[in-house]
């Protein structure tokens, strides 16, 4: 289980790093383009609208980099806080944001339906991240390109539920998830969560605090 946790963190940090690098690459290219426009087209006047467009693009990438860095910051601080009162929506938001790059490799998108007003749960956020990651990672590995993973939160019979459903073609390749079903169940037990599997849908149930 320790290896699963380390592997999960490895993937998250790598995913973040690659995602930010992606934004930086766009900034760099846009930046380079602006430089080219200024240096190469010295005789011509600068098209302000075009230039503002480039700047806008840079600003967009900055905003995305800042957003994901904020998620990293929150994720990092969860790693040493132990059991705490947490919001399942926050956990789902953070993790799906940090896994965007991982999912994007197969052009898989997240569709989130996170209901408001769901009570907090008491759990170890790092373990919950890990559990969620393992389930999503498993679904990504089983999906073919252009799939969708739906993430939805709800409250049912006093229990907070997070449903993860994969939609799309199944991959023909051998799944390469970091966590087996047995390890998943072990992790769920450690958190105090119940996992229900129904076809392509996996539901995590936790008692509301």
């Amino acid at each position, binding site marked *: 289980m320790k290896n699963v946790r380390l592997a999960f963190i490895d993937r998250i940090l790598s995913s973040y790093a690659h995602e930010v690098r992606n934004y930086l690459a766009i900034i*760099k290219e846009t930046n380079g383009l602006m430089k080219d426009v*200024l*240096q190469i087209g010295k005789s011509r006047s600068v098209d302000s609208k075009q230039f503002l467009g480039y700047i806008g693009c840079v600003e967009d990438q*900055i905003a995305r*980099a800042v957003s994901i860095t904020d998620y990293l910051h929150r994720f990092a601080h969860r790693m*040493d806080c132990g059991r705490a009162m947490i919001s399942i929506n926050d956990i789902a938001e953070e993790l799906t944001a940090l896994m965007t790059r991982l999912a994007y490799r197969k052009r898989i998108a997240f569709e989130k339906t996170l209901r408001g007003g769901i009570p907090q749960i008491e759990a170890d956020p790092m373990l919950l991240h890990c559990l969620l990651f393992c389930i999503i990672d498993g679904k990504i590995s089983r999906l073919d390109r252009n799939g969708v993973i739906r993430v939805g939160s709800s409250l049912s019979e006093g229990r907070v539920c997070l449903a993860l459903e994969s939609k799309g073609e199944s991959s023909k390749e051998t799944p390469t998830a970091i966590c087996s079903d047995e390890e998943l169940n072990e992790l769920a037990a450690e958190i105090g969560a119940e996992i229900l599997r129904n076809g392509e849908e996996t539901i995590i149930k936790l008692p509301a605090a």
Partner: protein
Amino acid sequence: MINWAKRKLAFLSKILPLSGPDEKSESALSQDRYKSLRIRLFFLIAALAGVPLVVIIIIGSVWLQGALREDFNNQLKGNIESTRQSIDFFIEERISALRFLASSNSFGQLSDGKYLNDIFINFKREFGELVDLGLIDSKGVQVTYSGPYDLRGKNYSNQDWFNAVAVRGVYVSDVFMGYRKFPHFVIAVKKELPEKGTFCILRATIDMATLNRYISTVNLKSRDDAFIVNRVGILQTQSRYHGNVLDTVNLEVPRPKEAVTLSEVRQGGTTFIFGYATIKNSDWTMGVMVAPTAQTSLVNLLASDIAAIYLVLLLISLGIFANIRITVKVVNWIREAELEREEAIVQTHHTGRLASIGRLAAGVAHEINNPLAIINEKAGLMKDLMQMTDAPIDRDKFIGLIKAISDSVHRCRTITHRLLGFARRMDIQHEEIDLNDTIKEVIEFLDKEVLYRNIGLVTRLKEDLPRIVSDKGQLQQVFLNIINNAIDAVKDGGKIVVSSEVKNRNMVRISVQDNGQGIPKDAVKSIFEPFYTTKGKGKGTGLGLSISYGIVQRLGGDISIESEEGSGSTFSIDLPIRAAGQ
């Protein structure tokens, strides 16, 4: 779990040598060590349980032996007393009978041979064992005789028995051969003849068989001996060890004044119990020699009793079995406690590692914000210049702004590159690494903290330090831990020097020297122990140095410390140029 495992091991450490911080964690789990521990514990328990048991057995044996002996002695005494009484009674009865015959018959009647013969026949019929009966006058001459021999006219006046009976009135003789050449003894009674002013003696000869029969009633075994001796130690009956009748015994047979007396005598290499008692109305002493038997020796008693042997063997087997069971149980308990401790340390190591990864990730998030902020401002300024001023675009200025964006992008990339490098190294693996680069990367992670506290962190890294084959991820953790400790130890504005050098042809050395508070002398020796911390409560688990120590040991190296309170500390990490096992 950590505390329980710790307490168990602390208790056991007091009585058994267990692994300490100097031993590698692998040896704590080695089979050889547990085998050796089992053997030592087995003998320890055997000694602890066996010594008092042996003492109890000895004391018990001595007591039981004494009790057995006393019981036997009492039994023997009883037998001797019983036999003595029988012999006493026998003699007393014959004396009484003779006295009766003497008193109820006149001298004249007894002088009649036929009359005497009739009396003899009746006497013999009544009492048996009678050989002859005779009347002897005061001059010692046999007047009449009834028996198998012709003893009439025989003169006994010179014989001791005649004089003895003449004086005492009754006499029981020792066994003697006499005229008939076979051992017998005589009972004689004196009859006074007042009318003549003289006396006569009525004498009966008793068959030896009677005495022998009585002696044999003492409950004897094959090695035992019973006999009667007279006052001067001459056998009156046959003896197994001392000879035939009228032979002299070669041991002192005292005449006890009363009751049966027991002592020990040594005969033919064996110690016998010797019991003796006087026979009344005679000069005889009955002696009984009993060889040590099962009844007198506990060992013999047990040895002769198959059930007892079996029981003793069974008890010994049970004892050994119980010892083995206890030994196995205790060693398993120790092994479980050590495993628990190892598991707890590994778990805490893992948790610590996750926490340190968390801190690094948070650090990255903070750090990357700055260059992003710069890019944001540069791009924003370009936008402002284009939107909010009427001045024409200053190309050079814009190019300057673009360059600044580019520099910040590069800075972000460096940070993310470092993060990627760290993330990938979370599994143990061996690779060729440049220690100087590793140190620099770790220092970069701590840059902000060092700057923030104005700490002077200087590196003195040997330029051509040999590349080593080791686990970069684990070493990063060690360096991070040691340098972090140095940062915690120094005040704001303090100094830390990180250096690298070649120690010898097999080892390189990384040193981290600080001018902080130092570590007290008595704390230095415990500094690498799990859970030991000099930091205040709540500030650190005390496992960082212990874990670092373990990592370096596993990588084939060593950590040592020199410290002076008030001056600072130097941690030295020695690493092999080739990884352990390569």
